[in-house]
């Protein structure tokens, strides 16, 4: 059992930055990414209401299925892909180790 996971943010094609996140603080991925200096607005503070924390999961472990609220918000955004998630709805747990993601543009 580890109390840290490593997730990888693809900042440009082929360029990945490692982000180390604690698993014992009940954080969401949005909070970790914001704390790591990524420009995420997270206007609604993590309530699946604003869609400004949109990420795309590129590879790594399978995550829990998104809730209806999360899917509703994702469906109302202009771009959505198979790996689309709201990072505020993804809890940082040991299962996340090795996840590769990228931030989705706010206004494509």
């Amino acid at each position, binding site marked *: 059992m580890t109390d840290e996971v490593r997730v990888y943010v693809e900042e440009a094609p082929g360029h990945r930055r490692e982000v180390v996140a604690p698993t014992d603080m009940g954080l969401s991925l949005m909070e970790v990414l914001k704390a790591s200096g990524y420009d995420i607005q997270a*206007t609604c503070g993590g309530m699946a*209401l604003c869609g400004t924390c949109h990420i795309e999961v590129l590879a790594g472990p399978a995550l829990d299925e998104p809730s209806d609220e999360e899917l509703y918000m994702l*469906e109302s955004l202009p771009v959505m892909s198979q790996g689309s998630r709201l990072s505020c709805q993804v809890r940082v747990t040991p299962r996340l180790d090795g996840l590769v993601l990228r931030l989705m543009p706010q206004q494509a």
Partner: protein
Amino acid sequence: MNSISTDICIIGAGPVGLFAVFEAGLLKLRCHVVDALPQVGGQLSEIYPKKPIYDIPGFPEVLAGDLVSNLMRQIEPFHPTFTLGERVERFAKLEDGSFQLFTTDGTEILCKAIAIAGGLGSFEPRKPAIENLENYESGKGVYYMVRDPETFRDKRLVIAGGGDSALDWTIFLADVAKEVTLVHRGTTFRGAADSAEKVKHLHDAGKVRLVLSSNVTHVHGPEQLEAVTITPNSGEPETLHVDSFIPLFGLTPKLGPIGEWGLELEDDAVKVNTVDYSTSEPGIFAIGDINTYPGKLKLILCGFHEAALMCQGAFKYINPDKKYVLKYTTVNGVPTL
């Protein structure tokens, strides 16, 4: 050109801007309120109208939408005027210290003081990534909001989106437009089940066309929009002759033009003096989520407090020779203008 003259122009019709109308009214100052959104209420109406709020004094619990309606009732006696659906772009200071403001749609507002209550910035539509889309904005066939449904009378429309507003406007415009096609990237509609059901009925009755698992990918026409291409996730693209395309993918706040007004800023927020919430430009004040000062809390309650103090400062700026004597509303009742 539409021209308005008032004492204070309030930029932003969020809770803080609305309450500032009340505080200004107590000082017998007239207000005009401008908001980029077609409705009042700021974040409360746009992001969380159905969420309960627990930290408004005197209301153990109130829905955000109801708080906005109550604020509107509270300011009624002061007859504020509104310009909704237009963003304030720029200002000019006149020789006598008053201001001229201009909106995106060319409305001009003459005022003696400006109160910026712009919150997180103006809410702007999320635009899909379609090449040349911007060429058809400004009345040439692409609309990101429905301001006046009559614009679409007897027109052929394509609406894109999978949220409530795409569903609601599809239902409403089915009776107004000549032809409505709703294009949705997915296969299901979450949102209000009732609206999704209605759209399905309209589709079954042949009143609207529903194109699922597809995206609008191209727009065409030399000047005015004439056609759009709809590309399915798998299969052949289809080009459809249309008069208007309405992408409805929600709104997102952007600090926008206020960030370029030369006011002193810190982390995208306007720096203020907490004596009266004045900015670095005399006569321009900033209240609510848009300002910053040591100890700032982005709460409605704090914005209300700031509005009260700001109006004292604006009163002094507008009437440098008059002395204002604080009276409680319980002494005189709520004055009217």
